[in-house]
Every structure is written in C-alpha cells, then in structure tokens.
C-alpha cells in the first residue's frame, strides 16, 4: 500500500531530514512512527500525504509514484487519506458540523447524504450532541476528536495522524487511541507519529523508529496488554 524505497529528503539550507529510508506498509496495518522531536517523523508523514516530495528515492502510494504525479493529480491522491494534525487545523469561523462537512463538499457530496455521513462521523467520535457548537468552545480532546471526525467522514482507506495526542492529558489520549483502534478494527490503514509510548503500548502494532532521519530496525511492540 505504502512503499518507501531509499527515500532521502533534504530541505534547502539544512541537513537531511530523512536519509535512505525504506519500508513497506500493508493495507490494514496500524503503524507507529516514533522518535525524538526533529527525527523526521513529520517529514515522513508529509511525504506519504504528498505534501512534500522526496529529494531522491521513490514513494509509492497504491503503486503510484508521488514524485511523478502531476500537480493537478495530487488533490485526488490526498483524498485517499484522512489527515489529523497535532494543532487540529480546524476552521474556527464555522461550527462543528460545517467543519466536518468540508471534505464531503470537496468531493462534491452535499445535501441529505452529506448530512447523514457527517452525523455518523460525529457519532463515532462521540460529538454528535455538539454539532452546532463552535470549535473554540470545545476542549482540546474534543477538538482533536472533531479533527478525527473530519478526517474519516469521506471514508479514506488510510488515516495519517501527526502527534494526535501530543497536547492531551492521559485520559484524553487514551480516548483518541481507542478511536484509532476502532478504525483499525474495520480495516483502515493507520499511521500515527508519536513521541510518547503511552498510547501505543495499549495496541499491538509495528513501530518505525526514526533517529536523526535514519530508520532504525522496524520493530513490533510486544506489550500485549488487553486493549481497554
């Protein structure tokens, strides 16, 4: 599904953010990208989401080479993903419902069908009763859940989350991880970048550990606690 082959990414005027990274993620996998801050986790996610292009090497998403995509094709590539950011990137001039419906409008889905799907997505993250609320009135954890609802409303096959629990306390973080786990159960490929081991320990999964832009041994977490 996602294949990195000898990928190097260098930003102008800085060191290599990623060096010779190769890995393969199968459909339906749940993968953590770990490492200290500045290790290249965000760069890795941006390469997957076609926000950045590799300096060298190839990134294949569903057998399509990101570097060779025409810029007009990139929006359609991005619709395969649900993106979740540490800073939520919500729109604060509209209410929860209108935030979540945006990806559907981009896909040209409107009216009753769209409203039904928005409510289903809000229900999944437990925010159905807040559909008329403005995002600024929500707590940090609720805002992150709203961002997740927006990411999943168009039913993408891949969810990419950059530090989704970064700003949240432990109980909120556990909520968020439980939601991701639920999506994993129904076959969505999930890639989560995180620096804290707290969330990931609950779920059996693979971790890609980055250290200064170099991929260390991809390891499976062995902690098989019962998932709460």
């Amino acid at each position, binding site marked *: 599904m996602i294949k990195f082959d000898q990928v190097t990414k260098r930003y102008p005027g800085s060191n290599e953010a990623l060096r010779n990274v190769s890995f393969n993620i199968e459909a339906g996998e749940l993968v953590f990208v770990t490492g200290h801050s500045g290790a290249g986790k965000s760069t890795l996610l941006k390469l997957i989401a076609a926000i950045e292009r590799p300096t060298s090497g190839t990134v294949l998403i569903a057998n399509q080479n990101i570097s060779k995509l025409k810029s007009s094709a990139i*929006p359609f590539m991005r619709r395969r993903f649900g993106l979740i950011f540490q800073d939520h990137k919500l*729109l604060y001039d509209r209410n929860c419902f209108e935030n979540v419906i945006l990806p559907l409008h*981009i896909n040209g*889905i409107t009216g009753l069908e769209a409203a039904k799907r928005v409510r289903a997505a809000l229900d999944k993250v437990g925010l159905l009763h807040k559909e008329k609320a403005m995002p600024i009135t929500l707590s940090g954890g609720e805002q992150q859940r709203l961002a997740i609802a*927006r990411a999943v409303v168009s039913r993408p096959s891949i969810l990419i989350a950059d530090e989704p629990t970064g700003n949240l306390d432990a109980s909120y973080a556990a909520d968020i991880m439980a939601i991701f786990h639920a999506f994993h159960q129904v076959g969505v490929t999930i890639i989560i970048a995180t620096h804290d081991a707290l969330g990931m320990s609950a779920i059996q999964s693979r971790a890609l550990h980055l250290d200064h832009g170099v991929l260390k041994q991809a390891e499976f977490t062995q902690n098989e606690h019962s998932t709460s």
Partner: protein
Amino acid sequence: MNNWLNQHRQAIKLVLSRMRSNKLPTFMICLVIAVAMCVPGLFYLGVDHLSKFTNHIQNETEISLFLKLDADKDAVSDIDAVLAKNNAIKQFHLVTKAQAWKELKSKTEINNATDSKISELDKNPLPDAFFIQAKSAEPEALESLKNELEKIPGVEHALLNTDWAKRLSALLSLGKKIILFITVLLALALLVVIGNTIRMQILTQKDEVVVSKLIGATNSFIRMPFLYAGIIYGLLGGLLATIMLVLVVKLFNLSVSDLSNLYSSDFSLPLINGQLFLGIISFAIFIGWLGSYLAVSRSIASIKID
C-alpha cells in the same frame, strides 16, 4: 454533472453568507464599481443621444439657394429649368420672397418677440430661394453640387446647411474616443480595486485555503468562491450603476426641460437604455471576474501548506 452543479451552488451559498456578514464592506466595493461604471455610462448616454440627433439632421441635407434680390419671374423660371435638368438633385422647391416674408412674420408673432425690429420693417428684405435635396448624402458630392449651383447666373449664394452638423458630429466622435479612454482607465482602476479586495479576502481565509488543500481540494475548488465573489461584486455594482444612471438622467431631464422649453425644443435623454444597461452590467461582471481571477491565481499559489 450533478456534482459540478452542487459545487457551484455551495460556492455561491458560501459567498453570499460571507457577504451578508460583511454588509458594509460589500456595499462599499459595489459602490466603487457602480460609480466607476456610471461616469462613462452617463457620458455615453449624452454623446450617443446627440450623435443620433445630428445623424438625423445630416440625413436631411438641404442646399439652400438664395437668388439675387433683383431676380424677376423669368430669372426664377430659368433657374427652375436648370435645376430640373440636373440629375444630382432629388427634389427641390421654391419659396418666394413673399412666402418667406409671411412665414417670418408669423414666427416672430408666435415667439412674442416684441423687441424684434422685424415688424417695423416696411420692405421685404428677403430673396427668393430654392431648397434642394440632393440624391447623394456624401459630403463631397454635396460640396461639389453646392459649388456648381452657386455658378448659375442669378444666384447670389448657396448654403449647405449641414456644415455645423458635420462639425458637431466630428466633435462627438472625438467625445466617443475620450469616453473609451476614460472607460479603459476606470476599468484598470477597478481591476486593481477588486483584485486587492479579493486578495485581502484570501488572506483572511488563509486557514481555510490551507485546510482545503490538505484534504484534497483542487485549485479550481478553492478558487471558485473567490471568483464568484468577484462576479457578484460586478453584478451588484452594475445594477447599482444602472440605478444611479436612471436617477441622474431623471434629474438631468427635469432641469434641462426648463432650458429646452425656452428654446421651444423637447430635448431630453431617454430614461431607459436597455442596451447600455445590459452592457454596463455585463462589463462590470466581466471586470469583477477578471480582477478576482488575477488576484486568486497568484495568491493561492503563494499560500504554502505545511
């Protein structure tokens, strides 16, 4: 197809709701467009009306042939015969000095020209005259015909009555060029104003642009609301311009009617000029679209996502 329509409907809805929450700025930009459209529109209306008026006069070209004061009946019938033979002439008629005298007297009575000295004249000062309509309306042909007729013995003076109309129409065509020039300048200014407004809007909606790009919106999707904003500004500005035009013309007609009564004329500008109004509105829409298109293409490309 349905998708496509839906996206346009969504974009228009979004723009209208943004305009509703920003009524005053929206009205301001529409007012700017309206004024900039109204000024050349008004000039055009005036010049167009005048030039129709002069064209009308030019089509009725007449050569007036004044005979010598001492011309007797024989001389008049000689000239009549010469004119009848000339095949450049469509028709002509004679106004004798007695007829002209009578007409002049009755006209002065109507105009109540009490201070006129005409009634005090005891002798008819007017000559016999032929009024001639040529077949051709070409200025050159008329000029040569006039010269030819002037050489007929017994003719004192030949007068082409279109000279002033010709001058006026030359002046009016200059006026039309000036209007075109003003229109182009104002259109440029409008492009800048609209472009700037849209650019500011894009900057305030920057978050939305970034998020839309991140979740897979195409550039045309992001552009659409801003283009519609430009189009709607143009439409509202154009409509406002036509309303202003109607009001100004109405005021103008009111005040000019006093003046034209004094000249016993019924000069007034037409209140509704469908073609001009349609032209103004579609031109305003076009300028709105173009201004926002130029601004949007550059601004959206300059917003980087990360």
